[in-house]
């Protein structure tokens, strides 16, 4: 089953092997490097947190790193109200969840055909799909706008869902196909001998084994869609349809930006993904190490 995972299992194995070694200066060095990386990663969060609750007068006096003289919650409240944040949160969640389910579904079916099934020219199809993921969004946004306008989907969330799901599933198909092409043939043959149809092989054999991988893929799709900016900003005209990422633009004017409001928006913007990640991090790690333990 080692092959049925998304990520290489070597680093995990190495980590396990390392744990059995005696304490060495190397370990401390690794720890120090990891700690430094941790501080580096957490620093933006810290800045957002520090400035989101800092009064504007403190900011203009001391800048981003100063310690606030008192805490104010106006920035958070103001951004919540001005951006109609509850609504944006709902929109983003709806779009991201739908895209993530849809894109995983499409990727799975495509990859089942391309990776396990025998499709003539599957390499060419994969190469084309990969090209699809590499094309810059800016270059396809105008045709997408025209298509959406022609079919009456401009300014609807459905347009964003369809476009984003298709774009993500191009990458998902590529990834899952390469994983499935190494799917143990013995298992598939055993299923065939037992008289399983193709549909049964997919639902009873492939999906259960692939579940951790699919979960990881779904989580990534969710986070990518959540952070998506260009497609929603172009496709969703009305404020009521917009997403969190687009609403963040409220803090940046033509010539001016409001740093404390920006920090508040940043904090509110990343919080949902952090919460989502915390909930799903068990499935994520399981997906990553699923193959390593066996």
């Amino acid at each position, binding site marked *: 089953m080692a092959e049925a995972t998304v990520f290489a299992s070597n680093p995990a194995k190495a980590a396990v092997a390392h744990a059995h070694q005696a304490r060495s200066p190397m370990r401390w060095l690794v720890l120090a490097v990891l700690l430094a990386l941790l501080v580096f990663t957490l620093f933006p969060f810290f800045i957002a947190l520090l400035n989101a609750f800092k009064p504007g007068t403190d900011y203009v006096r001391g800048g981003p790193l100063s310690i606030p003289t008192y805490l104010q919650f106006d920035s958070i409240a103001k951004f919540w109200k001005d951006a109609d944040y509850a609504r944006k949160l709902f929109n983003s969640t709806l779009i991201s969840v739908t895209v993530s389910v849809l894109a995983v579904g499409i990727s799975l079916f495509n990859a089942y055909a391309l990776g396990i099934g025998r499709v003539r020219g599957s390499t060419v199809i994969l190469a084309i799909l990969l090209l699809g993921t590499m094309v810059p969004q800016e270059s396809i946004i105008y045709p997408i*706008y025209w298509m959406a306008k022609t079919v009456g989907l401009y300014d609807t969330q459905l347009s964003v869902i369809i476009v984003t799901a298709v774009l993500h599933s191009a990458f998902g198909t590529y990834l899952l196909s390469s994983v499935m092409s190494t799917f143990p043939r013995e298992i598939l043959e055993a299923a065939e001998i037992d008289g399983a149809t193709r549909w049964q092989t997919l639902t009873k054999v492939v999906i259960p084994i692939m579940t951790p991988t699919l979960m990881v893929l779904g989580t990534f799709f969710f986070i990518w869609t959540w952070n998506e900016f*260009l497609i929603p900003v*172009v496709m969703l005209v009305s404020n009521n349809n917009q997403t969190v990422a687009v609403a963040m633009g409220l803090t940046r004017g033509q010539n001016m930006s409001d740093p404390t409001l920006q920090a508040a928006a940043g904090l509110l913007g990343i919080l949902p993904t952090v919460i989502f990640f915390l909930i799903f991090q068990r499935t994520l790690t399981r997906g990553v190490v699923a193959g390593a333990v066996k």
Partner: protein
Amino acid sequence: MTSLSKVALVAGASLMLLGSPAFAQDKTFNIWWYEGADSAQGITWTKALEELKANHPDVTVNFEQKTFDQLQQSGSMILNSAEAPDVLEYNKGNATAGLVASQGLLTNLDDAYTAEGWDKVLNEGQLVLSRYNELGIYGSGPIWGISTYGEYVSAFYNIDAFEKAGVKVPATLEELTAAFDTFKAQGVTPLALGGASTSGQHLLASLAYTKADDTWVQNYQGLKAPLDGAPYLFAAQTLTDWLAKGYITKDSTGMNDDDASLQFTSGKSPMYVSGTWNLGNFSANIKDFKWGQFVIPTPKYSVGSTGNLWIIPKGSKNPELAKEFISLLLSTKYQTEQANNGGVSFAADPAGVTNPVGANASAVFAQIAAKQGLGFYPDWPVPGYYDVLNQKDTGLLQGTLSPEQFVDEIKTVYDDAQASQ
């Protein structure tokens, strides 16, 4: 049901039937802008919209606070769809308002300009950015948008620090340099500058305008002739001189405007050259010292322009209401209101303005506009010139470009654009 009430019902129903074609039924007026809710414009426009609402109780007013980003990214796509509002704020200039005007997406405002009496408030100088020709170039052609406020670049200064150092507000460039010297002698870096950002090129242009006459500015902004580099050479030499004498810190090379303005607001540097868009932030947040503005002394031209435009999309369902709203914004009442909120008004009633910041800013703008001295922004003539100027400006401050090389490099880009138009 009694027969009487039946009659009443029928009568009522037929009245409603009769009434509906005569009265506008369930009208919705869609309006967008992206100025911040706390800015002078945002506050004033909200109040004016309230009045419009009160004047038309039968109309549902639907306002959406947009973002600059959104209209920058997809403005022409929105205007070319049924989703466009009835009236909206739009960025002035060739690449934005000019583009959508040339694409035929806007309502022509030539007739409204006189019919609504806007000509009594605005002069031709304040209409330069309202007119776009068939190529979308500003300065001539029909009126496609109306601006209701102004903006200009000036030096913000720390009044307390000036008093403490015994420095008077400079009226000439020599006095400005002398003021720098006094501060420097006292161990203070006098000028905060965002060398990698807008304020860097605005200072450079302000210095160039000290050596610019009408022909130069018109040629420069109109892309009419190859660049005459002399004013820019003077500006570049002055800037390197200031850097060498320590009037500007070496750090300003890589500094952006947010950090540079922080140098000023925290009291570290007593002067900062930037636009009137800072007024809101400074008024609200500077509590430690008194501050004021003075215009960089130039013979005529200052960096500045009229503000963003109100445009009426071609498909607007309520163009009359849209015009009424623009008229409200240009009325003395809301012009005064705007100045009182710290904004730069065209036609405020001086007696009614109690906010010193708005009163001063409006007065300064009036002076510049009266002598036709709006020199616009240095990046306007050439597409992408904003980044070119920032990049070369940084090179100049870093010392990798001499003033002569600086002028050569920006001249090459300018002349290429000029030749290929």
